[in-house]
């Protein structure tokens, strides 16, 4: 799989503050890539560099195999975290303007807009001023502005903030549909449940450094603790000492829940074999670390 975007050893220095320090990333084509990190970690700085809003002090950005050039902006769509549109401009005019700035002709922009206005069912908004729309409606308009010129790389900074659940879902479906079409989406967020749900790859930035990256599956594999949870009735007694019971707590209806860590040389089958004769099992599963856990753990360790 080729990478749509690579950054090599990016350094960005602001006066006394180093916003990015030797950050290298690879974003494979056609995936949803989560750019994670606490506030002030340097995510926005990186996104601005990719969008050529600012330039790195050193390092380079490669878009689809080529060093980033001014005309590459046409291939990138950017939804900044702080949304903004001209308040006194009409929706239609504004979208036409923004699309033309991205290099579309007026005619092309018009055709694309028609599709989106039907899709989002916002045909009646064309002649409305932005300031007359609700915040959610403005967000929709801005989303359209971001993807209208059919960019190959779409960068969304906190795309779901400001949306109600219904519209958030609408946007989520759009993101998935864009991936279907072979587009790449980088999204930066604090909401781990959407990372869990959508992202194929992630990169974690903390204190100007990249501290973790890779496919979501590989990272979860890496952070696996080899613990399993079990809900059962009876008493856990015959387990060999190699199997460590981390927690055991009573549930309602005489059930209990235990978290058990298995030794490196043992398998899940060994555990089940030991359990199956002594207790009655209601459910059993592996404790897969959530992105939230991984985030907190990694950032916490990095800060220490």
């Amino acid at each position: 799989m080729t990478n749509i975007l690579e950054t090599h050893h990016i350094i960005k220095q602001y006066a006394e503050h180093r916003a990015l320090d030797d950050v290298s990333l690879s974003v494979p084509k056609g995936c949803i890539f989560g750019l994670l990190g606490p506030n002030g970690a340097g995510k926005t700085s990186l996104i601005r560099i990719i969008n050529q809003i600012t330039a790195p002090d050193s390092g380079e950005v490669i878009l689809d195999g080529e060093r980033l050039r001014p005309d590459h902006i046409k291939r990138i769509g950017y939804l900044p975290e702080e949304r903004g549109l001209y308040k006194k401009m009409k929706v239609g005019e504004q979208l036409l303007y923004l699309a033309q700035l991205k290099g579309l002709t007026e005619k092309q922009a018009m055709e694309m807009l028609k599709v989106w206005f039907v899709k989002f069912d916002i045909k009646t908004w064309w002649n409305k001023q932005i300031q007359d729309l609700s915040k959610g409606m403005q967000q929709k308009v801005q989303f359209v502005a971001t993807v209208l010129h059919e960019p190959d790389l779409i960068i969304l900074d906190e795309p779901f903030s400001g949306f109600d659940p219904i519209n958030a879902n609408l946007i989520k479906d759009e993101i998935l549909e864009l991936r279907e079409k072979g587009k790449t989406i980088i999204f930066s967020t604090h909401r781990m449940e959407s990372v869990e749900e959508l992202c194929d790859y992630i990169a974690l930035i903390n204190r100007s450094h990249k501290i973790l990256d890779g496919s979501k599956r590989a990272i979860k594999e890496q952070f696996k603790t080899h613990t399993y949870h079990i809900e059962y009735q009876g008493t856990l007694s015959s387990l060999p000492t190699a199997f460590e019971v981390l927690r055991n707590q009573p549930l309602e209806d005489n059930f209990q829940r235990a978290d058990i860590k298995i030794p490196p040389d043992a398998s899940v089958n060994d555990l089940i074999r030991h359990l199956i004769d002594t207790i009655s099992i209601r459910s059993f599963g592996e404790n897969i670390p959530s992105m939230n856990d991984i985030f907190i753990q990694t950032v916490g360790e990095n800060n220490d």
Partner: protein
Amino acid sequence: MHTIFLIIKREYLVRVRKRSFIVMTILGPVLIFGFYAIIGWAAVSSINQKKVAVVDESGRFVNKFKADNETVFSYPKQSLTDAKKSFVKQGYDALVFIPKDVIEYPKTVQIFAEKSVSLALQSNIERAIGKEIETIKLEQAGITQKVIEDAKVNVDAQTISLSDAGEKSSNGIATTIISGFCALLIYISVLIYGTQVMRGVMEEKTNRIVEVIISSVKPFQLMLGKIIGVALVGLTQFLLWIALTTGLITVGSSILGQKEAAKTAVSARVNGMPGQQEVQQKMAKDKNPVASIMKAVETLNIPLIISCFLFYFLGGYLLYSALFGAIGAAVDSETETQQFMFPIMMPIIAAIAFAQIAVRDPDGPLAFWTSIIPFTSPVVMMVRVPFGVPVWQLVLSMGLLVLGFLGTTWIAARIYRVGILMYGKKVSFRELSKWVFYKG
């Protein structure tokens, strides 16, 4: 290049479509014309001639009062009592009674009028009688009217400006008015359109749309597009003003002109003296301030003034609007702009002060230097242009102005580029000067 054109187009259309623009475009010429009309009207109504009846018991003053623009005299052969009864009915504005012994007792002259007599008319009559008595007394002393006339040397200095194009008569007052007006207009428009740029930049920054835009275009393109767009709005407004004002004045002048001709005819008839009609008309033409201002305006090099005006408006505007744009980018809110506005406004305000000196002494050293230095030259040079400026000075001043605005645009662009993405930070001049030297 295409994107900068798009930005210019948007900035231009958004402003030109605003109701305030349309209102100002129509209101501007109406105000200018109204001002002009008031001057014209005042001029015309001041030559509204008063008819004065003179009852002269002394018999020395018959036909001795000279009619002028403001007053005509007639000499009904009536007694004072009869005249008092009938002078209003006969259409006189005032009645002057001169007793027999007026030469010995000049203070016995009486003026009657239905309404109170205007001070101007009173002093006019007093002057006429005084002069007459003076003549009579001089005659009595053996000095004839002819000697007196000969002794009077009519000094009516014409101001002639010497220029390459040859001698042209000019009118100092008209030139002063035009140059003052041009300077003031440059001053006001640089301020108005400069602040428009600042507000536009602030709007984009506080709206946060700037980040979307500069992910598509370079910050410099956005700033330049805005500055040029607003400049075009200003030019459009001026051209519309010039066109509308010229139209209004052409129409207005012909109306005023007709009214004057009628007045002159009336006064000639009242005077009832054949042969005087042409003299009167000529006099009316010469003395009418509107006509004389128009005549003076005609002698000025209007195309040069207008093209200089447009150049200095553009140059001054570009110089200052870039700085205004930089302020808009550096601050988060309107209230923060104050501290930065002040140092930028200072040279413009100073320019207006220098302009007042330059009006009085257009070729003095202060006027010269301030019309060469870019920060004050747009205003001060516009004062000097109607009076005539050597070509080399004009070229030097224009060249420096171009360098000046290239310089301020460069500095402003560097501040702008950092400022538009900087939020929630109180900036100082120290900070701004650092931004200028940031790289990338």
